[in-house]
């Protein structure tokens, strides 16, 4: 312990960046931290990789025969399923945001960050940034497994990439909702439940797994206006390169765009504000 002096002699030869640059740098460090967590959290690996693969295989080979018959002629179930399951998987994947944040609050690591002279929005921004990367990875895995079961980017690679982009953008807006949940519950277990249960009706009462017209009329009202349906339909259109009969690219994309912007515009400031007060 002869090097005692080195502990405090090495003083400020560094300087904190300022303004937007500081927010960017801090967010990047926090995002890195959250990404490092991924491979070290078995649950997340399962959610990220195993679950989507299992869902695709189960739905294609178990339900595909039956549900496929309800589809318009010439549409394969894999082609119908992959865009839908992409929304569903990404939406479910966002609950990890709530759990992760609740865990951080519970463990005291957030207090550690808050005792450091870093920008106040960096912790949330960094988490969202990491989640965006995670969701992109999930979407990519889905496309790969999709190709195995017969899904194709029929409208070309450009529209295919746009499809992933839209899915990730919607998932990211949902992550902002999840940050609010994560900060308002008292522990990770509650976050798990609170971030999860409402996703079942949200994703299942939609066009994700089955065409909406096969549902009872009263349920169709919800299903048709469900943002998950709107996103799933847009992703399908992007994957085949043509819009649904009776709609245009604008009529299909605009509502999705508005949902993404709307959710983010409400949930993100609420979350940042909540974080400041926490």
């Amino acid at each position, binding site marked *: *312990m002869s090097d005692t002096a080195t502990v405090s002699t090495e003083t400020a030869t560094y300087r904190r960046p300022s303004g937007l640059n500081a927010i960017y740098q801090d967010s990047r460090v926090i995002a890195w931290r959250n990404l490092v967590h991924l491979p070290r959290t078995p649950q997340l690996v399962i959610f990220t990789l195993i679950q989507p693969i299992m869902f695709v295989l189960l739905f294609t080979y178990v339900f595909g025969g039956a549900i496929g018959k309800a589809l318009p002629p010439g549409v394969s179930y894999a082609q119908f399923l992959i865009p839908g399951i992409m929304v569903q998987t990404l939406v479910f994947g966002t609950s990890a945001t709530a759990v992760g944040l609740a865990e951080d609050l519970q463990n*005291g690591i957030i207090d*550690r960050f808050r005792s450091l002279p870093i920008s106040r929005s960096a912790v949330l921004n960094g988490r969202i940034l990491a989640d965006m990367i995670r969701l992109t990875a999930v979407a990519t895995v889905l496309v790969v497994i999709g190709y195995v079961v017969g899904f194709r980017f029929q409208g070309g690679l450009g529209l295919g990439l746009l499809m992933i982009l839209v899915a990730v953008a919607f998932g990211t807006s949902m992550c902002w909702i999840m940050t609010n949940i994560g900060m308002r519950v008292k522990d990770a277990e509650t976050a798990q439940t609170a971030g999860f249960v409402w996703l079942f009706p949200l994703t299942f009462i939609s066009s994700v797994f089955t065409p909406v017209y096969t549902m009872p009329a009263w349920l169709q009202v919800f299903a048709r206006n469900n943002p998950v349906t709107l996103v799933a339909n847009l992703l399908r259109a992007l994957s085949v390169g043509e819009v649904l009969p009776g709609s245009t690219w604008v009529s299909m994309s605009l509502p999705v765009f508005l949902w993404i912007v709307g959710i983010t515009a409400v949930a993100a400031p609420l979350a940042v504000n909540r974080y400041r007060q926490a």
Partner: protein
Amino acid sequence: MPPIIEVENLHKSFGDTHALAGVSFQVERGSVLGLLGPNGAGKTTAVRVLATLLAPDQGTARVGGLDVSTQANAVRSIIGLTGQYAAVDEKLTGAENLRMVGRLLGMSSSQARSRATVLLERFDLSDAADRQVTTYSGGMRRRVDLAVSLVGSPEVLFLDEPTTGLDPASRSELWAITRELVADGTTVLLTTQYLDEADELADRIVVIDHGQVIEEGTADELKDRTGGRSLEIEFETTAELAAAASVLQPFSAKGELQQNEQDCLLSLSVDSDTALAVRAIAALTDAGLSPADFRLHRPSLDDVFMALTGHGTETEEQEGPNSIPGHAKSGDTNTEAMNS
């Protein structure tokens, strides 16, 4: 030079609970202040206010002349926080934790890396540097936690119950590290439930309870009010107890020899003179008396507390061996009293 920490009339309530009800104290630059009190006394709340994690309802707190409410970010760059409520990232390795904080403080990758290496070596964690913190022992965690809070070479270090739940070896290790930091000029504010910890480390002690400062002074001053350590000897029979009492009579210079017949317990004040305790036991053995048990009883927070709140005398009768290890118990009682 003005005090580096100035706390004035701090108030903070959570619902009906007045965690801080008008706390004031000061800490001189380069010194160690021990904030002593039972669970729920308001120690942690005070630290959280000083570390900018919590806004006070009323009153002011300054660290390094900076106001914690209006100049929070400036305060953050001169403080380090370690303890029960500030943590390290368990999924990261020790080295990653240190590098992350270095980067957040504005260091370049290579600066952060070399700072991490220095601290890991300093805290004897080099071998565990690349292991996730989840795999660390309790003592290692506290060390890495402390290391993380020192990345930015803070002028003021808050240690919030740094040794609660640690084994004795890790505990004294942490004490040694703290002393070295103080020798380097760091100001330390330490919260603790243990008088011996405050005794070991603190230059001055502030005792708080129910969110208020009830006493302030050096460790010696506080101990004068509580009577110091005593040797407790237990016997099988009251006959032995009486015999032992007469053997030990010459050892009690100030007449502080107490007999508790109900528990067959003899208590001799020895303060810090452990040799006196050894001589007393030897004298008993020479007289052919063999105690069923004996121990050195240090004044616990209970005792200080009793003494400071003026309930010291009435508890003497009940103060058998059963009530001695009652840190947690009495803490709980105080918490309850505060909530009710």
